[in-house]
């Protein structure tokens, strides 16, 4: 048991025993040295909570199944979550989109040294510039140092890709999306993807066919990236869930980079700012030339 596990369990025990929350969502050890999400509702299960660098999902996603059903009045059961700095941003996203209320959430925030996907540092983590959450109720101090390297630049790989020709970009994405099996795990793992009926499955209007061809797969992923424009918190859960190693976050990070550079907007900074596409200012002038073809 690491010192981080101890701190998480202590925080969970205090929250559950004082009945401040009815459940704590965290990670537990699973078979073959892996980790999996766990919803702890009883104090005797607190000992199962762990944290290590393989905890690469966004647990905020589990709040959607605890939300109040539409048209019903009862409040959402109070829930505590073990969250990385990026995950905390999606809490703010869901509050601004009026999906959840902050008073029903307790954030066990982590000082995050970065997580791994398939035993390799995840792409989003290796470019991450944020190591302490913007908001938390309890802060879990990291066992390992969490300094951001001085040459860190959140979008270095995207800048490289921007210099590619359109043909090179198309060739890259064609090879990546050729592997896609349309399992939609990326969508299911994403806390921002919570439509009752996804465009990919809608029959009337029938936006896209279910064919297993690259254009259809590309349509799905580009559509998803656009639906997350100004909403993606760059947690990399889609990439962690992908069984075919597709670098999906590159699409989202390109859009996030453009939004940051053009409008200075970063998703989930706080719970009061309106969602990016809902804060139109009539005096706003677009300064960028439409040069990017991603």
């Amino acid at each position, binding site marked *: 048991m690491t010192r981080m596990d101890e701190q998480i369990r202590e925080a969970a025990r205090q929250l559950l025993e004082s009945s401040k929350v009815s459940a704590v969502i965290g990670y537990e050890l699973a078979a073959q040295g892996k980790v999996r999400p766990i919803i702890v509702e009883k104090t005797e299960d607190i000992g199962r909570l762990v944290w290590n660098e393989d905890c690469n999902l966004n647990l905020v996603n589990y709040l959607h199944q605890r939300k109040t059903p539409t048209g019903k009045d009862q409040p959402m059961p109070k829930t505590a979550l073990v969250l990385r700095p990026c995950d905390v941003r999606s809490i703010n996203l869901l509050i601004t989109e009026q999906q959840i209320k902050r008073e029903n959430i307790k954030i066990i925030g982590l000082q995050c040294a970065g997580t791994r996907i398939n035993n390799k540092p995840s792409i989003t983590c290796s470019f991450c510039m944020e190591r302490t959450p913007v908001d938390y109720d309890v802060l879990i101090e990291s066992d390992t140092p969490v300094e951001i390297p001085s040459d860190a630049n959140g979008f270095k790989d995207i800048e490289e890709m921007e210099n590619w020709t359109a043909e090179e970009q198309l060739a890259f994405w064609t090879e990546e999306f050729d592997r896609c099996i349309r399992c939609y795990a990326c969508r299911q793992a994403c806390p921002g993807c919570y439509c009752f009926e996804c465009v990919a499955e809608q029959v009337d209007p029938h936006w896209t066919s279910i064919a297993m061809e690259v254009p259809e797969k590309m349509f799905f992923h580009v559509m998803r990236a656009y639906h997350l424009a100004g909403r993606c918190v760059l947690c990399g859960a889609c990439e962690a869930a992908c*069984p075919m190693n597709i670098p999906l976050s590159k699409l989202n990070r390109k859009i996030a980079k453009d939004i940051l550079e053009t409008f200075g907007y970063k998703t989930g900074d706080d719970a009061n700012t309106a969602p990016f596409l809902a804060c139109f200012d009539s005096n706003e002038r677009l300064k960028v030339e439409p040069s990017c073809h991603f």
Partner: protein
Amino acid sequence: MQFINYETRDQWILTLAADARVVAPVDSKEKLIYKQIKTAEEAVWNFEKTNLPAKAWYFPMSEPILFIEQGTQTKLTEALAPEPIVMFGIRPCDARSGLILDKLFIGKPPIDRQYANHRKALTMIGLSCPEMWETCFCTAVGGAPNSRDGLDIIN
């Protein structure tokens, strides 16, 4: 029984690739997928199991089955029968799963013509398993690491 060695196998693939589609496990960013190859070097020969089964090559998830031509008279044309495919590197369990699909589609009438054509065009060359891996259980369902069921040739 006749045997060939690796060198003649590579030569064989070159010859086959000239007039049939040769398909084998190919590494795509650390994921193994059956893809068409031209030479033996493109394929991976030392692997556990592929990430996707061989099924997609004889029971594709999407394919044209009928062409409809509109005009004064609507013309319907059945899609052409698939070209011959030779698949290399099929694990015995993967090949046995094909036999289960066969029962469903061509086991008894009515026969799925499209599926039957795909099966007729397919030659499967197996790769027996040198060891048992973490998720293996073929012997529990009547298979074996060197089972020839559903395979045309095994090595």
